[in-house]
């Protein structure tokens, strides 16, 4: 028996990635943070508008720093560019300043029309890695810069960034809880509802064009659907009682929602127009806050069927219910990652919430936040980041962090309390 275990151990330890013979091991010491220089864009106009120049480099540096892949730094051209050779880069000064990567750009802004060209160089390899030219309006500069940051991540890691996506959230800026939408970095916050009532739980459609949310505007917590590009707003479910925590299915065909029309709060799926309710949970406890798996085949949800709220998982037809969270006495807000590999949730201990992630099989339960009270985790489209709402001494609001809990950064701006953030798909 012991020998068997030893053998098993040996097998496991040798089952490395290169078990096949003939593979050559390449190792080298050292682990340093990659450094990226972001040079402010150079204007080709006669009378340049220096404000836009600062925006582009600030946006890219912010995005790249939060990615955690590189440490980005806004760094002026060195030596001061004469005539700015966008292609013939003199890499030596960048290399001696310790940079691995360099982002250069030049732009032209005429009559509100913006043309901007970005280039990403590998300083050590002295190569152009990627380059893009964008044409748009002057007001698109932030979005364009985010878009190139997406491209940088694509070039460096093979997967696009989420930097052009948005976050919807609830803000009390006007004194009432209204739904707002902002860029992922907190810029361009715009009110989506202005009904003076209580509005809660926004959720994006998979195409990012619509939002569902719960509003008391007709004296009952009803579920509404609202377009982002115009004011079209329709009721999805105005059933008696609660119509809360609606979530669009990944294919956009259905909406999972908690209704209390049949007594206590249960989870149902509806067609996206609100018709054809199908009840998924049947028990005398509260069942709410559904979150779809990315393949649409399962739902994580909150139930207090065992006394205290815990996260459960069931099939999309309501079968196969199993408990997911086993530690902690109050676990809520499940959010399934877009890669499917983890489920984020918030756990209350001693009155404060912390964000955790756990695998769908219940293993590797990991606490990500330790400061203040943090709720409502929501994943970015690429699964790299998690947004959440936080109350902490350094300032409350909507925060963003990497999926491992590092890089926690407040993004929401302006007056009031900001809560219940939800991240759009790409």
């Amino acid at each position: 028996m012991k020998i068997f275990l030893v053998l098993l151990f040996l097998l496991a330890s040798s089952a490395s990635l290169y078990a096949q013979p003939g593979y050559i091991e390449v190792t080298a010491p050292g682990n340093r943070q990659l450094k990226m220089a972001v040079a402010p864009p150079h204007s080709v106009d006669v009378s340049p508008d220096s404000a836009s120049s600062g925006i582009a480099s600030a946006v890219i540096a912010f995005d790249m720093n939060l990615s955690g892949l590189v440490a980005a730094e806004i760094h002026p051209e060195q030596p001061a560019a004469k005539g700015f050779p966008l292609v013939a880069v003199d890499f030596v000064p960048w290399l001696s300043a310790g940079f691995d990567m360099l982002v250069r750009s030049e732009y032209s802004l005429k009559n509100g029309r913006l043309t901007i060209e970005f280039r990403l160089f590998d300083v050590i390899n002295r190569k152009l890695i990627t380059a893009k030219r964008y044409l748009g309006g002057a007001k698109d500069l932030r979005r364009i810069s985010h878009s190139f940051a997406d491209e940088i991540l694509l070039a460096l890691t093979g997967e696009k960034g989420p930097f052009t996506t948005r976050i919807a959230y609830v803000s009390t800026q006007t004194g009432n809880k209204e739904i707002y939408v902002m860029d992922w970095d907190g810029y361009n916050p715009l009110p989506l509802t202005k009904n003076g009532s209580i509005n809660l739980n926004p959720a994006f459609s998979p195409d990012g064009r619509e939002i569902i949310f719960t509003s008391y505007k007709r004296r009952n917590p009803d579920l509404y659907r609202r377009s982002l590009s115009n004011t079209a707003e329709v009721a999805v479910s105005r059933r008696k009682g609660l119509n809360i925590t609606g979530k669009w299915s990944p294919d956009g065909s259905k909406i999972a929602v908690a209704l209390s029309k049949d007594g206590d709060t249960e989870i149902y799926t509806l067609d996206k127009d609100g018709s054809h309710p199908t009840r998924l949970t049947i028990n005398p406890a509260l069942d709410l806050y559904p979150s779809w798996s990315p393949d649409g085949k399962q739902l994580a949800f909150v139930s207090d069927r065992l006394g205290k709220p815990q996260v459960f998982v069931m099939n999309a037809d309501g079968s196969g219910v199993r408990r997911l969270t086993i530690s902690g006495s109050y676990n809520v807000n499940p959010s399934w990652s877009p890669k499917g590999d983890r489920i984020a949730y918030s756990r209350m201990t001693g009155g404060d919430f912390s964000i955790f992630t756990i695998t769908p099989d219940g293993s590797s339960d990991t606490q990500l936040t330790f400061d203040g009270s943090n709720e409502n985790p929501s994943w970015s489209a690429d699964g790299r980041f998690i947004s959440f709402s936080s109350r902490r001494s350094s300032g409350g609001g909507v925060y963003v962090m990497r999926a491992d809990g590092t890089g926690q950064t407040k993004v929401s701006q302006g007056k009031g309390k900001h809560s219940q953030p939800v991240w759009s798909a790409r």
Partner: protein
Amino acid sequence: MKKSMVLLLAGISMSALLTAGCANKEAVKKEEAVVPPVSVEKAVPVAPVEQAQPVEQTAPVQDAVASAVSPQEAMSPVAENRLETVYFDFDKSDLRQDTRDVLSKNAEVILKTLAGAKIQIEGHTDERGSAEYNLALGERRAKSAQQYLTTLGVKAENTSVISYGEEKPAVAGNDEGAWAKNRRAEFVVVK
């Protein structure tokens, strides 16, 4: 092109509204359709200036609805004051003895002086816990109060429930004193 169309239409609507009051009638009608029937009489005095706008955007319609709600709330205290608020333990919806006593008094008041009145029971929670779970918990509280009133003879069809969860605290503050006052069910006479 689109912009000029918009401007033209806006111009037409302005002239239409200024030249006669007819368009106003339309706006009023439209509004009444969405206002809950309970508050129709009170909703009428809403300033006509606001009613000129619904053609341009949907928000003012909603505003009108919201403002139509407030007169209703303003008129309720007269009756409401006679119906006492009841309180609950943390994360609980079962009725304590003191809660039952107050509910019995409320039932008496309802049966004696409010026969046939529609009463809405509002369930509330304290700020702790998740906002979504608290909505469900608040509803549970309102429903236990409703059930108890029913057993005391109050007609079920005359009561309704709504949960505000932690959204409408009675008192501000984040200590047990405030929390205890916020874990409650209130009784609002709506008609």
